[in-house]
């Protein structure tokens, strides 16, 4: 039902009833808007918190492999393949010296829906093992991402809770052997414990391809190592989290340092050179991520165009806020703007329904009575 059709329906009401209609719509609109806004703000906040919890676990893995002394394995990047529109493994670790790529999948829960998680893990592994789907050669991709020839690819399924028996039962059903990483988070430190899950006891599978990796995990990571909150977002974090994080950092570290506008080069310097959010992302991926940030930011009125050069990467943009110092208020304002944008469609639809409802009720009442001046609720 479009706005026009509602209007033509309103036209059919008597003048008195039209007045009543407008009054009722006005009252209801305000109420409805408040309600939708609160609900959407709550949704935005919850999603951001969930994203942050997931990142916290990514950070355990990054902490274990960010160029530590006793291993050749290092953290390479989040979400390899994502730039190729392939939702695949969460984290890429690897030893360039040995030519081994290690793909790690993180699952929020392995206790529930174990088969589904193991099945998904298997599918993703098969995608890499069977040389992709035609338009992407995973081996070639990984070699490029690691800057080294890849001789072997290894995998791990990780979670904070790793129920061994359930996983074994699932391995049997899904016909797969795999390595599990149990992630421990102790605030300032973290641990990774590794064990293998086999579809049957007689399987020759004995864990990771490289014994040295297993030793490192056993000797170093099973005890506790330092943990930090390295990642603030990844490619597939929600738009809410990405917009919030990027905007706050751009405001604090760019605008407040005397820069009126930012361009792609500034964004890239902050997130990919001065910090570690986009380590080993390709230029192409970074540009696409930036475009998505600008598009969504503009839709939410958090980012505004200041200098139009006819090219998104060259254009000058600004974080649209008068709040520069008070980080809490800035963060709140961004979340509120997101909520206002996100609620729009739902709210408009609900409002249309309300309007029709009011018209309907007014039509039903034969003549104007006192009750038309009182809200039926």
């Amino acid at each position, binding site marked *: 039902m479009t706005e026009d059709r509602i209007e033509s329906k309103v036209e059919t009401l008597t003048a008195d009833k039209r007045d009543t209609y407008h009054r009722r719509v006005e009252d209801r609109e305000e109420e409805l808007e408040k309600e939708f806004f609160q609900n959407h703000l709550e949704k935005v906040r919850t999603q951001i*918190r969930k994203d*942050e*919890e997931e*990142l*916290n676990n990514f*950070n355990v893995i*990054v902490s274990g492999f*960010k*160029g530590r002394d006793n291993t050749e394995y*290092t*953290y390479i990047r989040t979400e390899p393949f994502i730039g190729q529109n392939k939702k695949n493994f969460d984290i890429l670790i690897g030893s*360039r010296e040995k030519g081994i790529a290690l793909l790690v999948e993180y699952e929020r829960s392995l206790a529930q829906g174990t088969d589904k998680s193991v099945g998904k893990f298997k599918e993703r592994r098969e995608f890499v093992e069977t040389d992709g789907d035609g338009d992407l050669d995973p081996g070639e991709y990984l070699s490029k991402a*690691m*800057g080294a020839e890849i001789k072997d690819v290894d995998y791990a399924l990780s979670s904070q809770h790793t129920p061994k028996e359930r996983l074994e039962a699932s391995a049997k059903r899904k016909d797969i052997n795999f390595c599990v990483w149990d992630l421990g*988070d*102790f*605030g*300032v*430190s973290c641990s990774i414990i590794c064990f293998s899950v086999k579809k049957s006891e007689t399987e020759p599978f004995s864990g990771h391809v490289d014994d040295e990796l297993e030793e490192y995990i056993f000797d170093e990571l099973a005890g506790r190592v*330092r*943990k*930090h*909150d*390295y990642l*603030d977002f990844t490619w597939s974090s929600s738009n809410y989290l990405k917009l919030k*994080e990027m905007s*706050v*950092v751009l405001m*604090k*570290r760019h605008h*407040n*340092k005397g820069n009126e506008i930012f361009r792609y080069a500034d964004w890239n310097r*902050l997130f*990919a*050179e*001065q*910090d*570690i959010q986009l*380590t*080993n992302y390709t230029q192409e991926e970074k540009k696409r991520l930036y475009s998505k940030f600008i598009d969504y930011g503009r839709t939410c009125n958090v980012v505004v165009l200041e200098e139009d050069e006819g090219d998104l990467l060259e254009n000058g943009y600004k974080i649209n806020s008068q709040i520069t*110092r*008070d*980080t*809490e208020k800035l*963060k709140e304002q961004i979340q509120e703007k997101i909520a206002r944008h996100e609620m729009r469609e739902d709210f408009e639809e609900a409002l249309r329904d309300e309007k029709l409802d009011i018209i309907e009720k007014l039509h039903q009442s034969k003549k104007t009575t006192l009750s038309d001046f009182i809200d039926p609720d």
Partner: protein
Amino acid sequence: MVASNELDASTRDELLDEARSALHTDNRTNFRVVCLVSDHSWKGLVDLARGWFDVTDQGEFYQLYTKHTKRNQTNHVFLYLYQHPATGAPIIFTLNSSEDLNETLDRMVTNTEDLYSLWLPPDEMGELRENLLEITGLELTGFDYDTFGRDQHYEGQVRPGFQRSGSHDSKDAEHMLEEWTVQYGITATRLRFKLATRGTFRFSNDCEFVLENGSTEFLYEDVVEPALEAAHPLNELMKAADLSVSKENGFEQIEEEPVEITISDPLDYEDRNEFTSEMQKEDFYPYSAQASEGSLLFNGKIADERNDGIISVSTNGEDLMLLPRYDSGFDSLVRFYRFLVEKVDPDTEIDTVKV
């Protein structure tokens, strides 16, 4: 003509001499030395100063000139920026007043990232005091004090748990400070001394040294320089802290050098709210604390709302790690460490041995 605070000297020794005669001729004038710490190159710092002052090269130092108006009176401010040879720390010499400094230099320091007033932690301040008192004839004549840390219950303390601050002057100030430290758990933030042959001077834990009369050379060599050297290692450690990306043949790797701190009177999970609210009082806003249950006390990013720095803090209440983020300045780290010492636990220590 109004007495000018301008100095003509072109070497440090000449400047100290000139300042000494100025003190001698006008006993309302004090000689001030303010120590700073900076992570800018010397040239970079001088360029930054140009944004706040008229800067002229004057031999071994730079003259920084500006004026400000207070109570309908225009005050001309002449500061002399000198680089301490041994530590590289920027030093300001001036005959202007503390108020003049507040109106001019302090604004630049507060608003400039990677520039901070040199801070003497309580232990270093105490050591400096003891060393000075070794000098024959030198006496402590007074002090300002504060209570640092959360409620501490040292054995033998009188009515523990009260916040105490104030100022004390007496002939037996040295003993009073000792006794009050033990009995009331206070920490001195400003010390006043007298040395009959060399003059009267005072200094604060912010490294502002003031000589009312006496030898400018003595102040510089026996008070300022030892303070600079005492505070140097802490600042070097903070400046070395880093999180960045190194590139090798197109492959990027994380480089990090965190600051590791031990809180000797550990925080409990119940202290979490107080910890974050105290933090906010000092303009540190926890903007993305990653929530998790259990023993975890705090893990997240903090925005320094004074200079727009962003730092990572993670702690279980006992061990605490700091990392500068998005190329933020070391001054946010020093300030955060200072917050820990002054508001959380005065015995907080930086671990110099890396894990």
